């Protein structure tokens, strides 16, 4: 007759074993797919007219999902710039919005309205530089952000109209749909030539970018 302790220990070992095997199996499966995004999702990755910079003929495209209120996005921003400077003409950066913080969608509207006047990058820089002034306990304060942006060279009347306008709503909705279908659950989230960054970090991003550069140049 089987001993109680044998039964208990045997069961524990078996469960832990199954857990370990399932983990290894799943991770192998994941690395086989190499985080490649499905074709259907790929069409959602890029948005016509989304803010971007870098050479249009660059063969490496980074899509960054960001929230202007996200502190890590702010810290990552100069790093991405540095990488672009390191490989001139080879990298194109497209920014898409993932307003995960409370009220961030309203700040994104400001950014996109500034983008309509060609002022996206200066606006983003102002918001990042003064992030602490317009976010309180991780809640965005769009009124303060708006005041900070008034320092930019904008047609204020048009700006005020655009913020609530159809064009901005459309862009925001497109990005929110992409966030959902591409399963962006944290910011910043990077896709390099359609490949999602597997684990988060400077090194991982640099590696992913350099792999793609080696592939295409």
């Amino acid at each position, binding site marked *: 007759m089987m001993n109680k302790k044998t*039964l208990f220990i045997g069961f524990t070992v078996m469960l832990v074993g199954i857990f370990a095997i399932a983990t290894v199996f799943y991770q192998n499966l994941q690395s086989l797919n190499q985080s490649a995004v499905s074709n259907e999702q790929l069409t959602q990755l890029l948005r016509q007219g989304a803010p971007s910079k870098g050479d249009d003929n660059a063969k490496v495209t980074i899509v960054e999902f960001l929230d202007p209120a996200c502190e890590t996005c702010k810290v990552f921003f100069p790093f991405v710039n540095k990488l672009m400077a390191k490989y001139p003409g080879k990298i194109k950066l497209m920014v898409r919005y993932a307003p995960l913080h409370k009220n961030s969608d309203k700040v994104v509207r400001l950014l996109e309205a500034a983008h309509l006047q060609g002022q996206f990058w200066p606006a983003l820089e102002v918001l990042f530089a003064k992030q602490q002034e317009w976010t309180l306990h991780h809640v965005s304060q769009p009124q303060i952000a708006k005041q900070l942006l008034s320092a930019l060279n904008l047609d204020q009347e048009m700006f005020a109209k655009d913020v609530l306008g159809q064009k901005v709503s459309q862009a925001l909705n497109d990005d929110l749909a992409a966030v959902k279908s591409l399963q962006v659950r944290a910011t910043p989230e990077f896709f390099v030539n359609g490949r999602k960054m597997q684990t988060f970090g400077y090194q991982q991003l640099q590696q992913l970018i350099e792999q793609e550069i080696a592939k295409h140049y």
Partner: protein
Amino acid sequence: MSNEKSANAMSRQWLMLFAVWAIATIATLSSLFFSEIVKLPVCSLCWYQRIAIYPLVLIMPLALFPLDKKVIAYAGILTLFGWLVALFHVLLVAGIIPKAAQPCVQDIPCSETHLNLFGFLNMPMMSLLTFTLMAVLLFLAKNRDSEESM
């Protein structure tokens, strides 16, 4: 002599409580697998259900060696709590309880499910079945207790 006997013989009651432990442990490892390995998001209702089930993994073995019947009460209250939350969650996902009633953060809505087997078996439903099974086993173990002591 009788002590030795009760230490080695697997009474039905012992087996039922062992089964409760096994179910709780399988549920714990599964939930950890989905959140830590597959990286599915965990909503707040899921957390409350985890709070009910995780302690059982450690409490039940203490009551199995040697058999301590008082654990039925301790495990019972945790199971009841988990069962109620799971029921709420199932009704929420089914749309029977309106969305506004959910105590969820905006980022991870509880009304969304990420796994669906056979068309009806989503995560909250599995949780409800798990808690139900554990509750039945605990109930039977308790009744057997009164039979055996008679």
